[in-house]
């Protein structure tokens, strides 16, 4: 699926979200253009994950609209948005403990798989071919992120860094048209972070929407071409890394941010 010409990727307009009396998002708008790695930064508790959840349909804002490739997303749940080609990773690792790492990535292909209920119980040649193909794709995603060697391990035997990369592998394996990553570098060491940065850059295609949520400035500055800054639920700035670096509000928010980063 490619983004039709003239459409503008994943768009959120005027999103407001409150939990009880707590206003978590306040009239937030953002545009994620295809072919551009977009970053979303902000201190802890700024509402990044909440905005993310609004985009993926886990939360529904009280106000605002969102659309993807020109199609309105309002009212769609997470599974329906997944069917539109939007995938995500989770800030809190969401691995199934009973499945091997490879199988955890393999489930990312569920919507793409065509084998029916009969072949779920009775092996057929077509089902085996399909299974091999799916495994090849999942394995490719793991290799892309440099963790192919851990494919057959159980999540409980692996370090969190590997699991986080696997989480990303699951999001990219189905070749989605939009990938949203929530704090992909949290818990990664320097080497893994570098691998991740490279992998994400390699992944980038002209028709792919890619959003990376981080509170680590350095990673975002290196990776992204366009950056949004969220603070206390409001979008305080947006622009190129250079513009963001020079933005007075951003400097104020991130001054003395060392403890946070």
């Amino acid at each position, binding site marked *: 699926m490619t983004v039709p010409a003239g459409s503008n990727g994943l768009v959120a307009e005027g999103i407001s979200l409150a939990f009880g009396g707590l206003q978590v998002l306040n009239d937030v708008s953002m545009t994620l253009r295809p072919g551009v790695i977009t970053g979303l930064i902000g201190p802890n508790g700024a509402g990044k994950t909440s905005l993310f959840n609004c985009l993926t349909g886990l939360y529904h804002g009280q106000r605002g609209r969102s659309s993807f490739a020109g199609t309105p997303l309002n009212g769609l*749940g997470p*599974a329906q948005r997944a069917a539109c080609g939007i995938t995500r990773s989770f800030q809190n690792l969401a691995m*199934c403990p009973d499945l091997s790492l490879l199988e955890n990535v393999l489930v990312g292909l569920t919507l793409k798989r065509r084998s029916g209920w009969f072949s*779920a119980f009775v092996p057929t040649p077509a089902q085996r071919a399909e*299974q091999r193909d799916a495994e090849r794709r999942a394995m490719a995603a793991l290799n892309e992120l440099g963790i192919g060697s851990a494919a057959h391990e159980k999540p409980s035997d692996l370090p969190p860094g590997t699991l986080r990369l696997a989480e990303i592998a699951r999001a990219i394996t189905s070749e989605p048209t939009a990938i949203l990553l929530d704090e992909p570098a949290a818990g990664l060491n320097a080497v893994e972070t570098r691998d991740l940065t490279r992998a994400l850059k390699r992944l980038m295609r002209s028709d792919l929407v890619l959003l990376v949520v981080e509170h680590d400035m350095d990673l975002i500055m290196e990776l992204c071409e366009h950056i949004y800054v969220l603070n206390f639920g409001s979008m305080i700035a947006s622009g190129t890394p250079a513009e963001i670096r020079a933005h007075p509000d951003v400097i104020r928010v991130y001054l003395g941010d060392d403890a946070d980063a």
Partner: protein
Amino acid sequence: MAVSDLAHASKTGVSARGGHVDIARLSVLALVVALSLLPLLAGGFLLYSLSLCFANALAVLSVSMLVRYGGEVSIGHSFFVAFGAYAVAIVEHRLGLSIAASLPLATLLGAAAGFVFAFPSRRLSGIYLAVATMALALALPEILIGFEKFTGGFEGLYIAQDLIPGIPKALQRYYVALAVLGLVCLALAHFRRSAQGLALLMAQAQPRAAEAIGITRSWARVSIFTLSAAVAALAGALTGFASSTVSPNSFTFFSGVFLLVGSVVSLNGLSLPAALVGGAFITLVPTYLAQAGDWVPILYGVALVVVTLVANAGDLRRFLPRGRGR
């Protein structure tokens, strides 16, 4: 390991991982061979008990499927078991057909009943389903007795037709039950690696992440319950065939609870040995403790509590077999 030996899912004996002989698989194979040869040595009553035991093992398996893949408990699976058993009996009485026709029919009807039952609670947490299965278990005796015209009321119905005329009844019962149980275990081993199996395990362990990759809770709930009910009905059809009779006595409120006990005692395992342990427990304990009738609920209750506590006590967990969902 799942991937490399995938192509060999149905072959037993040697796993593809480096060509090493897999001891677990070999012992299952040995068990199957031993059970297949047993009728050469054993007498009628033992064969009869074992046939029932196989049928019960399959019923236990249906509950374990629900626990493993759905994360749900049912205390009303006796309903679907009875459904299958009565389907066989009624098909024989009304249409004059043997289990060659009624076994598949019972399975399909069981799946349909499971779907209808699970559909209303598709969006709710599993606890609501558990409560609804309690009503199912309590409604069952009423239905069996109330629809006397079909079910034969208190008396029940006889099942007399052979699958293959000419072969001794005891052998037919034994081998049909063993073959169906073995095939279902193989099918479940394959299912564990299928797209649907993986999706169900994911939906159970990480419902939100599963939604985000397109696996909805309602799909997962309805699918696994339908499958599990189908297996339960198949088990019921075997029970009916193996015991040559169906009556409300075999399906009281407690039958459903006992199936859950069998599942818990077998650690919700989906392998042939696990199913046999569960089936043997619920078949043999009541038979051999018949004099101590009132102790049976206590024994079962203690088994439920102890196994559940031990299996969930965290530290003890690593002594249990790994790889849930097998």
